[in-house]
């Protein structure tokens, strides 16, 4: 038995020796939750595509092929990193968020070594699981766009998914909250700069140049970020906010006065939820704003894991009817003339000369989202606190596009219940506080955009900055007459290409393959897709603009 025992001891000794050999290291998880902290270092590389593979992947689909034609073939490979970082929510709550770090790779001289960063902000997304870093997801078209337009051409791309999406446990998205949006962009930039040297793509480094851009919601976020970084004395090399709702107060006024944009029923709950969390005063019950049919559960509806089409089909939101087709009678105490004027202003739009009229009319229905009382209250607030960018007769033609002066607290109960929503628009309007870009800025958009109206947003900002030195802020209407003089003439081919693609689409929708729609229905289908269709053209314009610096 002695020997058996010794043999067992010997075997045990081998086991003990072996137990000391442990496994290798992996990423470290940060214990700090301070703003801008990289939560997992190094971040996960979701995919690594060389230039040829990326070109082949894009070329495998029709939309990818169109995109390649516009962005040009990839010069660089792209490594896609999934960055988790700490930031804050709309009420300054600490939250983890995530996003993309796309790093150009490869042998071409423009693909490694010190390279500029493009800080990008994506457009409104109702999908809570959205992850712009996940290039393996074929529905991540915006991720593919910025990878093709920027990263594959030698720009390092940094783009948040936004708080409230993906891994963020915030429970809502701080939608169009200028302070939070800029904070989050700043935080992912800090985290990405921390991450870059530790990645598998450390041959590419930050050369210190920073370009800021984004589309739609992201256009707003980009402008808010540019403002915040410049105010903080940080380097911004150039910026190109695209198709954003910058002049939020004037845009809100336009919509409440009947100019309902496409997507308004989705944007509205995102906005009220965002501002309710930030300021706590938008409503005491969601029925203060929303019709009883939709009010229940609306505060936590978006973003959602449910597809937006399902949300419409389930009757959780109306597809387009923001307002009641039976419009309200407005009563301003002691002012019959104004009462009549507002009542008329809130009628369903019917101006046959306005090409947007059919679109506006879609914003009205019997199963509507926003209560008439609330809409009437908003209209009374508009006339009490005029925004210089509001349409005539509220604001006479030629008025300076100045923001309304809104008191911090409600001055009269007659202004309730919409006072604080308009105040939130005012607070988050990018004219508030007044500022001007110090870095060269290109504002790209399209005047036929049915979703984020061009003139009230881009036009208002351009007018707001009309006194700036020539060339500091340029406006590119991708749907406008192709420019013939510098500096915008560089973008003329993009204007021509966009307008040609829209014309081709109009014909396509009328063809058998495209559904054989009537000319009017085809026109409506083209209009419906215009906001999205502009994005790649403006994005390539932004790259062309950045390449000058």
């Amino acid at each position: 038995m002695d020997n058996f025992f010794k043999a067992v001891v010997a075997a045990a000794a081998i086991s003990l020796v072996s137990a000391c050999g442990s496994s290798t290291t992996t990423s470290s998880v940060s214990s700090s939750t301070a703003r801008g902290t990289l939560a997992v270092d190094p971040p996960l590389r979701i995919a690594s595509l060389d230039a040829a593979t990326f070109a082949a992947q894009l070329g495998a689909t029709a939309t990818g092929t169109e995109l390649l034609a516009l962005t040009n073939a990839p010069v660089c490979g792209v490594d896609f990193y999934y960055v988790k970082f700490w930031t804050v929510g709309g009420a300054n709550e600490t939250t983890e968020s995530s996003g993309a770090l796309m790093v150009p790779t490869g042998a071409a001289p423009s693909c490694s070594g010190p390279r500029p960063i493009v800080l990008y902000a994506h457009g409104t997304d109702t999908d809570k699981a959205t992850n712009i870093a996940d290039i393996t997801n074929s529905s991540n078209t915006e991720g593919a766009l910025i990878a093709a337009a920027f990263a594959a051409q030698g720009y390092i791309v940094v783009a948040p998914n936004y708080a409230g999406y993906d891994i963020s446990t915030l429970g809502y998205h701080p939608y169009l909250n200028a302070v939070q949006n800029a904070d989050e962009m700043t935080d992912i930039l800090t985290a990405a700069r921390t991450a870059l040297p530790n990645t598998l793509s450390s041959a590419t480094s930050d050369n210190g140049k920073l370009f800021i851009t984004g589309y739609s919601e992201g256009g707003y976020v980009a402008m808010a970020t540019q403002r915040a970084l410049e105010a903080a004395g940080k380097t911004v090399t150039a910026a190109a906010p695209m198709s954003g709702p910058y002049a939020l107060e004037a845009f809100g006024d336009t919509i409440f006065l009947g100019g309902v944009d496409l997507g308004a029923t989705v944007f509205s709950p995102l906005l009220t939820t965002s501002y309710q969390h930030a300021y706590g005063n938008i409503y005491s019950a969601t029925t203060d704003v929303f019709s009883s049919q939709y009010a229940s559960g609306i505060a936590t509806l978006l973003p959602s894991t449910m597809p937006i089409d399902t949300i419409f089909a389930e009757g959780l939101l109306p597809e387009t009817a923001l307002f009641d087709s039976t419009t309200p009678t407005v009563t301003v105490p002691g002012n019959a003339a104004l009462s009549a004027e507002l009542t008329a202003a809130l009628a369903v739009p019917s101006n046959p000369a306005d090409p947007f009229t059919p679109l506006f009319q879609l914003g009205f229905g019997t199963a509507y989202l926003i209560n008439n009382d609330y809409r009437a209250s908003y209209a009374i607030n508009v006339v009490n606190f005029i925004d210089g960018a509001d349409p005539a007769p509220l604001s006479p033609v030629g008025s300076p596009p100045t923001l309304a002066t809104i008191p911090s607290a409600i001055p009269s109960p007659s202004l309730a219940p919409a006072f604080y929503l308009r105040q939130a628009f005012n607070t988050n309007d990018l004219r508030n506080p007044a500022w001007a870009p110090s870095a060269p800025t290109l504002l790209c958009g399209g005047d036929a955009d049915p979703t984020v109206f061009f003139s009230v947003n881009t036009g208002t900002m351009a007018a707001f900055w009309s006194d700036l030195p020539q060339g500091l802020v340029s406006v590119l209407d991708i749907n406008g007459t192709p420019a013939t003089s510098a500096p915008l003439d560089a973008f003329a081919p993009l204007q021509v290409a966009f307008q040609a693609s829209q014309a081709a689409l109009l014909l396509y929708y009328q063809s058998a393959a495209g559904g054989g729609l009537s000319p009017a229905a085809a026109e409506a289908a083209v209009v419906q897709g215009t906001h999205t269709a502009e994005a790649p053209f403006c994005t390539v314009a932004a790259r062309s603009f950045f390449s000058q610096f």
Partner: protein
Amino acid sequence: MILSNIRKLPATLALIAASWACCAGANADASAGDAVPNNDFRLGSYTVFYRASSDDLSGPYVPSGVNFHIDNLETLYIGYVRRLSAHFSAELAIGYPPLTKTYGAGPATLGSVPYNGQAISTARWLAPTGFLEYNFFAEDAVLRPFIGVGVNYTNFYDRRSTEAGDAASGGPTRIELPPSVGPAVTAGLAYRIAPRWHAYASYSASKVNTRLTAITGGVDRTSHIEFNPQVLVVSIGYAF
């Protein structure tokens, strides 16, 4: 392969050798009579044929069809057998912990990163197996077949993702392979060379399964792996 492993043998083998020398001597003094020796030390070759099958790796950002392949290998066999009765014995079998390489199987590339056929990870494992064996025929027979059943315990250690593995996974990767406990069976033949010396050949099969977790950048990817090794042992034993 065996020789190079022997050169690398740690102090543990010296420990076994020392216990063998000490006790063999002690026994020799006491075994002047006809007593059947109760202990048998064996050394030999340990050839492992993997019958591995694994589920495709699953987890975030893993395309379908990502799997593994493990090469067969040969290492040093160390065995100790204790005589329990004329027909029954107990065996503790250990292979000198082999460095096992895992190769990618599936897509040629993940994105643009080579995968299929790349050595993506290495691990050593210590897999002691205890058998209760039944030996046929008389104890002094020239040929004695035996069969046995037992338990295998496999402990994986020195688990490392290679550079190619890190590239495929998307960053520095930690690999977890919890220990496995499973049944084992064996069948073999003993050939009597001299009263105290035998040659043995045996073939064993054991059920070894574990759940691989690869942790990269805070993301877990997992696969259930069944190694189910079959082992050919050819050894020489000295009884004392």
